[in-house]
């Protein structure tokens, strides 16, 4: 379908984008557009204006900062897949990026756009959560680092203020990480996704499509920390979750998948 009409501005810098967002409270940011434009075409999203930050090339990078990797928010999924630094230091994220959409989507979609969209089914959202990533945002009040645990606040809702822009995502260097995605078909969203990572000696597990936001499987983590086997810990994967019943799956099946995939992810870790 054709989107409802909107005004369009191209921002030459992050500061300019912040200012443009400030002028119109119904304006939205446009990065790769692969979350926003589908919503525009179905007229689910009806912003009055789009602020295009797609040309801010200085927000595309992957930088090895020692025990952390810093990733520019506008880095394309495809670049994450191919980046040698990421492959070496946080392969989990590179692997998950390869499961996002299809090649055409990965050529345009960005990690910042994906995370800011806050889809509870987001692969990168679950991985970021498992990694305890830090999301750097810049707004009219300056820059702040948001722990990912505070970032997703509801379905398609993040804690970003109306004029805030994600500029960088920081993830720990992680040697062991697994992301398993169950889909009805290869091009489908995650029916359920499970990310597991050894972050500084602690196994952390996060789930996609098991609630209103990506969720940490805290019951699993605590069981593991208490010495439980992978199988016993994974049996708790659905605790504290609230999976939907929709055309892709029932909530019972999602809970079952979470348990199975959690066990497999922990075994593969």
């Amino acid at each position: 379908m054709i989107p409802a009409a909107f005004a369009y501005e191209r921002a030459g810098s992050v500061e300019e984008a912040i200012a443009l967002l400030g002028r119109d409270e119904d304006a939205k940011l446009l990065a790769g557009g692969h979350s926003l434009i589908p919503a525009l075409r179905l007229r689910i999203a009806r912003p009055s204006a789009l602020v295009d930050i797609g040309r801010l090339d200085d927000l595309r990078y992957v930088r090895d900062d020692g025990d952390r990797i810093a990733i520019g928010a506008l880095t394309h999924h495809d670049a994450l897949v191919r980046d040698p630094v990421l492959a070496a230091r946080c392969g989990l994220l590179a692997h998950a990026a390869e499961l996002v959409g299809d090649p055409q989507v990965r050529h345009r979609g960005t990690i910042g756009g994906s995370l800011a969209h806050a889809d509870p089914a987001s692969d990168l959202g679950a991985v970021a959560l498992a990694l305890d990533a830090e999301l750097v945002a810049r707004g009219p009040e300056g820059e702040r680092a948001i722990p990912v645990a505070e970032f997703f606040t509801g379905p398609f809702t993040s804690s970003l203020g109306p004029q805030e822009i994600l500029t960088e995502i920081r993830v720990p260097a992680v040697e062991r990480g697994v992301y398993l995605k169950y889909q009805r078909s290869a091009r489908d969203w995650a029916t359920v996704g499970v990310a597991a990572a050894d972050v500084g000696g602690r196994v952390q597990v996060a789930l996609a499509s098991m609630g209103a936001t990506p969720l940490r499987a805290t019951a699993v983590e605590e069981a593991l920390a208490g010495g439980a086997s992978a199988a016993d810990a994974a049996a708790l994967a659905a605790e504290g979750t609230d999976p939907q019943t929709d055309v892709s799956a029932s909530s019972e099946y999602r809970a079952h998948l979470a348990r199975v995939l959690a066990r497999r992810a922990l075994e593969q870790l």
Partner: protein
Amino acid sequence: MTSVAITVNGQLRDAEVEPRQLLVYFLRETLGLKGTNVGCDTSSCGACTVLMDGVSVKSCTVLAAQADGSAVTTIEALAEDGDLHVVQQAFHEHHALQCGYCTPGFVMATVSLLQENPNPSEGEIRQALEGNLCRCTGYHNIVRAVEAAARAGG
């Protein structure tokens, strides 16, 4: 309205576009390049696939305004001096098209794939083309065509 200057098939095109105009409609309706098709409205089917700055993108999920300053290649530009491109020729030889509606999208996606991975396995081909849907061929001959194009130096 917003101004764009997009290089399409090697030619610089200037235009005023409505911000909401999708790149695929800019190509089809403003420039009259009707080889690129619209097959869905959820960025699923890939019939609209073109190359933008050298890589495959779904032109239904790009605003014309976003393409300002970019170089876009459509199916119409593939054949050189009338001769079919290696990928087009392979699709022909392997009967990889029936109704033809998904074909330009598959061909452009294949061109992009072979640029990034000149020697893909069958599994890699099938993964790489999951963003393109076909209802007629059952995909079998498309995969064979891509393999043949790769062998021919696609």
